[in-house]
């Protein structure tokens, strides 16, 4: 079943991991793909780490094994780094490099990892890495998830054609946010690392 594709979305509670997952699932359905997803919610709103998996193909259930992700959408660099065990040399990656500091870092009890070194590691060892720079995007943080998806949709072999994502946005997003979501997605698509 090499036809299956697995996407990992990693972020911080409040960044919209759950919404993005719903959106990707809807997009896959629009593209008439067999899709499943898995995430743990309950505390997502309260700023903890949130990870979800989306799998496309028969006999998959949204679960991703170690080294099993074909794509990673990292909405925050530390959370992207936390998901490294699920990546492999063929994984294609989008990372939004804007940091959200965990409390321990704020309080000086831990230090934030060296994201640059992590990204260099990915660039050396994985298929494709696109980094959304900290100062590159002038967009409300609320929309950064959709923006990152837009960028991810340009990765080689991304399993869902972007017209289906746009269609899914029409279905999933609340009426009054539709336009700005579509705009963010298109900005993400047009994004090129500066």
């Amino acid at each position, binding site marked *: 079943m090499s036809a299956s594709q697995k996407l990992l979305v990693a972020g911080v509670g409040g960044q919209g991991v759950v919404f993005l997952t719903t959106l990707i699932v809807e997009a896959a359905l629009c593209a008439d793909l067999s899709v499943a997803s*898995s*995430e743990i919610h309950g505390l997502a709103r309260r700023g903890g780490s949130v990870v979800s998996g989306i799998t496309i193909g028969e006999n998959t259930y949204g*679960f991703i*094994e170690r080294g099993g992700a074909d794509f990673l959408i990292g909405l925050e660099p530390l959370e992207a780094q936390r998901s490294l065990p699920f990546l492999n040399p063929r994984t294609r990656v989008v990372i939004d490099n804007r940091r959200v500091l965990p409390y321990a870092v*704020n309080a000086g009890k831990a230090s934030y990892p060296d994201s640059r070194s992590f990204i260099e590691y990915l660039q050396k060892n994985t298929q494709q890495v696109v980094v959304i720079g900290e100062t590159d995007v002038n967009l409300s943080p609320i929309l950064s998830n959709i923006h990152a998806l837009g960028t991810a949709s340009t990765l080689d072999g991304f399993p869902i054609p972007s017209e289906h994502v746009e269609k899914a946005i029409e279905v999933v997003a609340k009426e009054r946010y539709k336009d700005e979501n579509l705009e963010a997605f298109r900005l993400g698509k047009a994004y090129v690392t500066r």
Partner: protein
Amino acid sequence: MPDNIIKILTSYDTPLRACVTGNEAVARGAIEASVCGVFAYPGTPSTEISEVFHDINRFQNHPDSKKAYADLSARPLYFEFSVNERIALEKGIAYSIANQRTLCCMKNVGMNVASDALMTITYQTIGAGLVIVVCDDPGCYSSSNEQDSRYWGKMASVPVFNPAAPADACEMTRDAFALSEQIKLPVIVRMTTRVDHTRGMVSYRKIASNELAPGFERRPEHINIPARTAAAHQVLVEKLEGDVVDRFLDKHSATSPNEGAGERPLLGVIASGVAAAYAREIITREADKGHKVDVLTLGLIHPFPAKIVLEFLRDGIGQVLVLEELDPIVENEVRILAQKHRLNVEILGKDYAGLSVVGEYNLDIVGEALARFTGQHAMKPQGFPAADYEKHVQELPPRPPALCAGCPHRATFYTLKLAVPREDSSVIMCGDIGCFGLGALPPLGMMDTIHHMGMSISMAQGLSEALGAGRGGRHLVALVGDGTFFHSGIPSLLNAVYTRANILVIIFDNRTIGMTGHQEHPGSAHEDKYESVELESLLRGMGVRFVETIDPFDIKSCFNTINDAIAFDGVSVVVSKSPCLFCEEFEGEARRGRRVVVDQTLCNTCHNQDDVELPCSKVVSARNGLSKARALLVAENHIPSSEQRCPANICNHGFLSSILAGDYKEALEIVRDKILFARVCGEVCHRPCEFLYRADGGVEGRTDGSGIVPIKRLKEFVSTIEENFNDFSGQKPTAASGEKRTHRVAVIGAGPAGLSAAYDLIRTGYDVTVFEKEKAAGGLLRFAIPGFRVSKEACEAEISVLRDLGVRFEFDKALGRDFALDDVADDYAAVVVAVGMGISSTLDIIDINIPVSKRYAAIEFLREFNDNTLRIEPGARILVIGGGNSAVDAARAAKRHDAKSDVIISCVETRDEMPAFEEEIESAVREGIQIIDGSDVEACVAGSGDGARVMLKSLNGQKKAWDVSCDYVITAIGQRGDRTAIGQGGLKTNTEDRIITDPAGGRTDTKNVFTAGDITAGNHVSVIGAIASGKRAAVGVRQRLEGYDLPYEGQEALDVLNSPQTPGRRPPRHSDGRLDETQVARDMPAFEIFQACAKCDHCIENFGCPALIKVKGRVRVDDFLCTRCGLCLDVCPNDAIQWAT
């Protein structure tokens, strides 16, 4: 109208492919079985099931739906969030008995609450289908245990479905209704977090038509009395053994892959729940590898499908691996079966290849077990090069969930943290389940216990009873959320009232059940279908006599209420009421437009020194910040930082903050940062820092008038804790700069001024030599101030620090006698002259009439007293002339030398105007010394024997005179400079023979000569005046030698001290005796200096709002996260957090 609601309510003749979560699939399954009533209590991971029905209920009862979707809302479902799971199930049972299909939803531990109802209904009967969905939580993502709720099916004898994926969940829920209705038993659908929250493809089919009419039929089974029970048990056993159950068992088991006629493999896997999905994915993926495994998946696991399993095992399987999360329930049944039927099969399960009863399975765990079972590498290797990989996955900072920015719970916890000191364990905080349980984590850390829902109140009353709380100063506080209080706190509170417990209960009323996504509860019913219960009336009705509602964003009033409540004898309840940010009633919009900013000039800055390189022993700590913030609320005496008036610039803010935090050693170090003589100052300083010199020339305690901050006594307190005092290790050089050390500086005079200059200079890296005419260092501290006022040993110990720091001493070297100033000025880069005023002023009338052996200058007298060389005839009559401290010291010394002596002080000042310290004067009077104030010497004649008679006249306009017979006269009317020492090197002197200098740096006209102490014209004659001028001279030296360009940091206070305008009125006296630790701990909060040391990080370390972040070491506000609640403005002890203008 929401599409998903319409979709889930629609019947499809041709199946609709949907991708939905397991929870939505359960809801759809129930709808397809034409469920009529749903009773739930929210609880992760089950909540989304009930939310579907909550939304449906709203939709179907909405007037628009009635028109636009008449078919979908024709027969509205009944839905409620019941008060707890037990009520949900009880009401659900009744609903079923009334012949309506019923669904009850709850999380794992909810089933425990509901179990009372479950355990007896099985002996009786239901009506229409009754399905209980129980959601377990392997891995404990959001639960207080990872219990295996399949046991409830076995224990209560009800069938249990165990879906592996959303598609199963839908189908099994639908079939559960059918089975339940046929055997008249409730049926459990047991889900797990992973299945609940997994989205997968589900086919929406036709919805069964609801042919059942509600009704109640009188049946004997509805009455449970012991006489019928045993027979009922038999009926129950039979219900589970019939063909009906068998048909469902058959339907919900599957063997795969179905190889047809091929040869059967020797390996079998039996899987249930999500483990079956893992196995299916892995085995399908690895199918091309050629190893063959037959898989039996079981969907209905109780009653156990013995026939099916037996058939699977009999057919040549040699080894079977059982895959199920949590407890080995299926596995044990398989083992029983094999034993009963003597099967030659090896059964593997728990403890095989890392399979555990603990935690959640996943693809990796199941893959690993299957790989070992089949002898293959089932999982693909990850393939990253090992180099650097570990580095990138190790030690990543955790990101635990936290209370939201602006959360009212944080506000309550914060005030609680201020009100209830947690340093000692006298207050025990019993927490509970819910969002607010996050208050147990740092930085709040306000809970000592958390158990299960509602336990907080029981825990508090139980501990209170056992520990005898209230009597020993121990207090028990129960913290409970509003949802939990209604769920299960009420009976416990009733018990507390009824048993006369002594506890405080704080209800965190955020107007919703927050943790699970904001559901209704009886205390905050927002929808018309529910009635809202007024909490305060309920509490009063329950007999609670102390009930107060507080707004957690009003810190001061909360603080007071909590303190009152904790002091209340009996059960007190405080309701901290403020809506969750996600509640409709939260007035977030009103707050828009404002922004919160941090004024960086007030945050983490120091009001006490311009030179950040100067030493500061203040340790930034959470405890420190908290005590400061606490004092902010309770302090009666606030002193703005701008009024800090220590001439030596001791950081009184940091000093008091440390004492407040109970860190007395740190307080001592803060004093030692600035001065060598912490103990000496504690004993003899005349404490100008304690008084405010008003512009009109008045003086008052530096407070709002209600009292004075006893800085001197506190200094004495911290420096007389011997262990701390004797540890001088904190007094270290502060500059390691080698280039400065090439400068040699000479200090002439080892009194407090010279030694203070030496202290600052050696610490900033200079090579310092001190020249002293005596044989020991200390000056007036050693020779003049009597030992009963200043501890000579302690003084010696403080001076010895200089030697350890590397200062060289040259004793027996008097300026002008043994060396010339010009020579020193040539040899050394800079010279500090601090020789003091060596000559005592005398009265001619005394000098002429009294023989040398019978008269003393006070300084000489005290010196002999201190050296123990005083020779005075016993029982002598002694007259002391003068009103300053030297006079009083000499008088008291004389009295101490010989208690029989008769000592009289005569001074020109009135009693109130005497410059001596009030405490000293009072001591003198108490010791039997007579004071003739407002008097002056008029004449002096020889008296009888060796004695003299001194005639005194009144200066108060009274015609009064005294004729004092005395054996000795001590004059204490002041000192002057010694011209032998200072009349050289071009030094300019004034009429008192003091050296004229530049007041800002102690610099003389001679290029590299500076002065310090009493010899400096215009300098205040006092210990602190001497110390401060020594420090100032050190700054002058640095300005000259290293281009240091900051002024002396204590200049302003020193100017006030030296100002002739500073009134001479004595400050109000302190009470007698040393402070002890109990007094300090009790009184300190009232003496807090407000706007103290701004170095704190208090907002992050003790408050921890996620919107307060640190960027490059500076506290900032994350504008995106900030909800503009404004609480941090009150939290900041430094007024640094402000509304943006």
